[in-house]
């Protein structure tokens, strides 16, 4: 019907190579999440600080991260910083771009989580003689973590999907990059990218399931 012969054998031979790429993908995603979480906490504190400069900085970061394409943010890191004589490798550009994006979205999630805990909880803690810091640490924060956990997991999945954008700035060691290289050599586009799609799907599902299992152990209420 299609007059096209699929060459799956050739593609499957490249599987070990692609799985190596998948490890790089996972590595970038995890690193970008770690950086993103740390920055997001800082941005959240900036917003709560009451300082106009810090608050404005945090708001600007969050707005740019949420209102421009992730690919734009990666381009900014890769090409834009060139203006200052900073030339990042594809790996670093990708990492910086995704981490920037993660931080913006996560900071917004944290704000939502903070809002979701009623003031009466901290008040109940204070009325038992806790200091405001104790009430925050022992009562508000544990509940906040639970509210924020699902969005953080989602962001992790997003980070994995975003790593595929590295190929547009010449990244060639992650799953998308390796797939593209294999494709350029053999022109078996469909076969290679179909396998890549399956690997991405499996990684995304594995992360989601692992997070769910972790959550059901952590948050038993």
């Amino acid at each position: 019907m299609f007059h096209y012969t699929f060459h799956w054998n050739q593609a499957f031979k490249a599987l070990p190579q692609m799985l190596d790429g998948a490890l790089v993908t996972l590595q970038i995603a995890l690193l970008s999440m770690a950086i993103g979480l740390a920055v997001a906490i800082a941005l959240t504190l900036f917003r709560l600080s009451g300082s106009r400069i810090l608050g404005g900085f945090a708001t600007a970061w969050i707005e740019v991260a949420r209102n421009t394409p992730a690919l734009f943010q990666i381009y900014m890191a890769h090409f834009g910083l060139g203006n200052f004589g900073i030339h990042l490798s594809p790996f670093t550009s990708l990492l910086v771009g995704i981490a920037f994006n993660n931080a913006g979205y996560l900071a917004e999630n944290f704000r939502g989580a903070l809002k979701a805990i009623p003031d009466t909880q901290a008040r109940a803690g204070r009325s038992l003689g806790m200091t405001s810091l104790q009430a925050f640490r022992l009562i508000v924060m544990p509940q906040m973590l639970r509210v924020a956990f699902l969005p953080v997991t989602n962001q992790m999945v997003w980070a994995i999907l975003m790593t595929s954008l590295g190929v547009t700035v010449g990244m060639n060691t992650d799953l998308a990059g390796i797939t593209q290289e294999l494709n350029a050599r053999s022109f078996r586009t469909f076969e290679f990218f179909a396998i890549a799609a399956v690997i991405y799907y499996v990684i995304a599902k594995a992360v989601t399931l692992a997070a769910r299992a972790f959550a059901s152990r952590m948050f038993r209420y």
Partner: protein
Amino acid sequence: MFNTALSWSDLVFLAHGAGMTLAVTAVSVAAGTVLGILFGVIRSQLGPYWAAPLTFVLDVFRSVPLLIQLVLGNALQSIMKLGWPPFTTSCVVLSLYTAAYCTEIVRGGIDSVPTTTRRAARSLGMSWFQDMRYIVAPLAIRVSLPTWIGLTLGVMKDSALVLWLGLIELLRASQILVTRLQEPLFILLICGAIYFIISLPIARLGGYLEKRWSPND
């Protein structure tokens, strides 16, 4: 004064790119929403068990990078000798991608209508369709619209990836200018500003509706 090689015709070039971004977004969101409503109704009608195959397929669209989907879509249309231009391929893939998210939004909206309300409608003698049309739809749209606007903005941003198939949309247009003029930061800032200009009114509308329609009004 600030010196730039950026000329008036370059700005027109960027505007054309932005036009392409808007065109791809408009087509994909429109088609994706129609499909999403269809799938969403089917999903909530069939229940989780019978809708499982549909749920799975839609989940794949949400768990595989869009870039990979675009490449696969393009490869598939060439294998099938459909002869689609990149614009068509891009819109088809983005529509399905949009539909996958929209289905969840629609289903969430429908499920947010209390069973008791729907029973009340049916007990007044309304048909399933009348119940959907006069009771469920107005309530579900209220719940779903802010999220749907978020989806539209998301698709607008994600549409940048169609540059991989050779379409010259806003980001690709900027990249071409960057290569030619060697003023990366300045041109990318303009590009980012255009994304903001496009998305801000839509985001504002979303925020407004969310406030206006919050459940405790």
